[in-house]
């Protein structure tokens, strides 16, 4: 039995090319017209890949012909496609599922997407014993890579860095109070990221009351008059500032009396405004943690670099699994092919 993968990804094709192939073809069509014994289509925003098996080797051109036939307008762009067979296919799948082939190294969303694609193919009957084996092994590899390396460690976007820092300061975010100063897009994204971690007490203050109310409605918070925002500093835990003010709005002199009423509660300030809304000296004050856009980005880049450092360890785990999988597959695929759906379910 020949195991293969044909596809394109963010490495080989731009988004326009990728979206042309996403969801245009069914696994059944690939089985009937393409001659695949088993077929599984993985379509995410970063890749469209066909995983399959066949009794006899199928030429890439033949598979692309079937893929493109499914499309209304036939556009030839075969250069963007790659193909992996046998061991190389298993290695590629393991790398994909472990997040090593992703645009953001170590991202974990891909695992869920692959699991969903696999479940769909299994339910429709297009994934058989061989794909079952290789995908189950891939999920094991992903779990091992995640638990034994730091490949998924650290946030890699400004919003997620802000959330991670907030968690490292406060722990549970559910009871925390957030004030958004300035109703900008980045503020909205950041507060949405905090919202996803359970923050519900959100206050929005902006020079334009209308915009404050609009953003407050979007993030399920409440608008606060702009001349009242300083009074909020005694209560809040997180301040996200992104106004277009030319001069710093928050200085040590202004913050000091407010800190006195906060007892020993820390204050996390995310200043994403350019020019900055908060004087850098504020970070020297006891219990105040100030991060501007540069420092957040620096941490995101550092996390990415840290993930890259973990690549070698992750690749080693994958290589071990590929070797073991190939050795087992050598004499087991005939037995696997005769497995019933019940036996397949028990293997998973």
């Amino acid at each position, binding site marked *: 039995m020949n195991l293969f993968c044909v596809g394109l990804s963010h490495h080989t094709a731009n988004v326009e090319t990728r979206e042309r192939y996403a969801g245009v073809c069914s696994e059944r069509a690939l089985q009937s017209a393409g001659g695949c014994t088993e077929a599984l289509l993985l379509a995410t925003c970063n890749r469209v890949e066909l995983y399959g098996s066949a009794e006899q080797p199928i030429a890439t051109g033949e598979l692309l012909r079937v893929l493109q036939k499914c499309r209304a307008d036939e556009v030839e762009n075969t250069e963007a496609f790659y193909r992996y067979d046998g061991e190389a296919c298993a290695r590629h799948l393991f790398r994909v599922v472990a997040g090593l082939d992703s645009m953001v190294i170590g991202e974990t969303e891909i695992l869920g997407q692959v699991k969903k694609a696999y479940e769909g193919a299994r339910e429709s009957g297009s994934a058989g014993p061989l794909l079952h084996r290789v995908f189950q092994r891939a999920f094991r590899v992903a779990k091992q890579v995640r638990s034994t390396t*730091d490949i998924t*460690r650290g946030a890699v976007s400004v919003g997620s860095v802000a959330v991670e820092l907030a968690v*490292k*300061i406060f722990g549970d975010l559910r009871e925390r109070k957030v004030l958004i100063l300035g109703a900008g897009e980045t503020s909205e994204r950041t507060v949405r990221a905090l919202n996803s971690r359970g923050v519900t007490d959100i206050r929005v203050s902006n020079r334009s009351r209308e915009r404050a109310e609009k953003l407050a409605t979007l993030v399920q918070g409440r608008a606060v008059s702009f001349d009242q925002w300083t009074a909020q500093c005694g209560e809040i835990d997180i301040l996200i500032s992104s106004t277009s003010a030319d001069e710093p709005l928050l200085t040590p002199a202004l913050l000091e009396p407010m800190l006195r009423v906060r007892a*020993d509660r820390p204050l996390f300030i995310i200043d994403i405004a350019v020019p900055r809304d908060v004087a850098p000296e504020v970070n020297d004050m*006891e*219990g105040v943690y100030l*991060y501007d856009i540069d420092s957040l980005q620096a*941490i995101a880049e550092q996390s990415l670099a840290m993930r890259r*450092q973990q690549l070698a360890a992750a690749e080693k785990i994958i290589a071990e699994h590929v070797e073991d999988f190939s050795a087992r597959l050598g004499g087991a695929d005939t037995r696997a092919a005769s497995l019933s759906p019940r036996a397949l379910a028990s293997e998973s």
Partner: protein
Amino acid sequence: MDRQLLIASTLCFFTALLRTLFAVRKGIPLHGRFNFFAIGLGFLFQTGFLSIRGHALGRCPLTNLFEVFVFLAWSVALVYLVIGPAYRLSLMGAFTAPLVFLIQIFALLAPIDIPHPVRLPADPWLEFHASVSMIAYGAFALACVAGVMYLLQERQLKTHKIHSIFYHLPPLTNLFSALTRLLWLGFALYTAGLVSGFFTGGPLPRLKMTCAFVVWIFYGTILQVRHLHRLAPRRVATLCILAFSAAVSVLWAINFVSQTHPT
């Protein structure tokens, strides 16, 4: 036999220490379970050692500096194991193991296992006083560990210099909460130990009493300023480290004096 148990125990803590160093150096995730079991096993060996010593002495094994340090290491491990998962914060085991290892390796290597010149009679109040005070020291030691972790995490957050250990350390508020609870636990036990000292049969040694009260007042003051929010958490964490260093020095001094002037 008893020293062999202590060596086995020290090796357990050393293994936990090596595992932590390796994980931090390689940047691989630290699993608290490994340290928990390593400390648990080390604790069992320590208990075996203290039990054998206790039977040989016919009383609580706190008759010389060597036994005091081993009992202190045992107390640290005990408090770590019994404080429960809510306060047994991630990586606390990784920080506890080196502390216990250092205390025990010092006890093993330093020539301090000298039998007490006077065969001390068994006095239940005296033994209660000594053992409870030592367990209080265990809680203070863990508060010190939490303080070190707090300062490490706080510094990274302040300076924006994030190292790989940042992702393993618990949140600041959780660390401070654990530190405060450990301080209260230690203070309550220490108070009980101090009060029980008055019920012992012999005369109260003035120097010991003075030193014990100084430690008690030091910790009491930290808790009071913490309660009144007069000091920032960072300063409280620093004071916890200083207080424990002072308390261990006092412990040393008290035992040194009682060995050199046994009457």
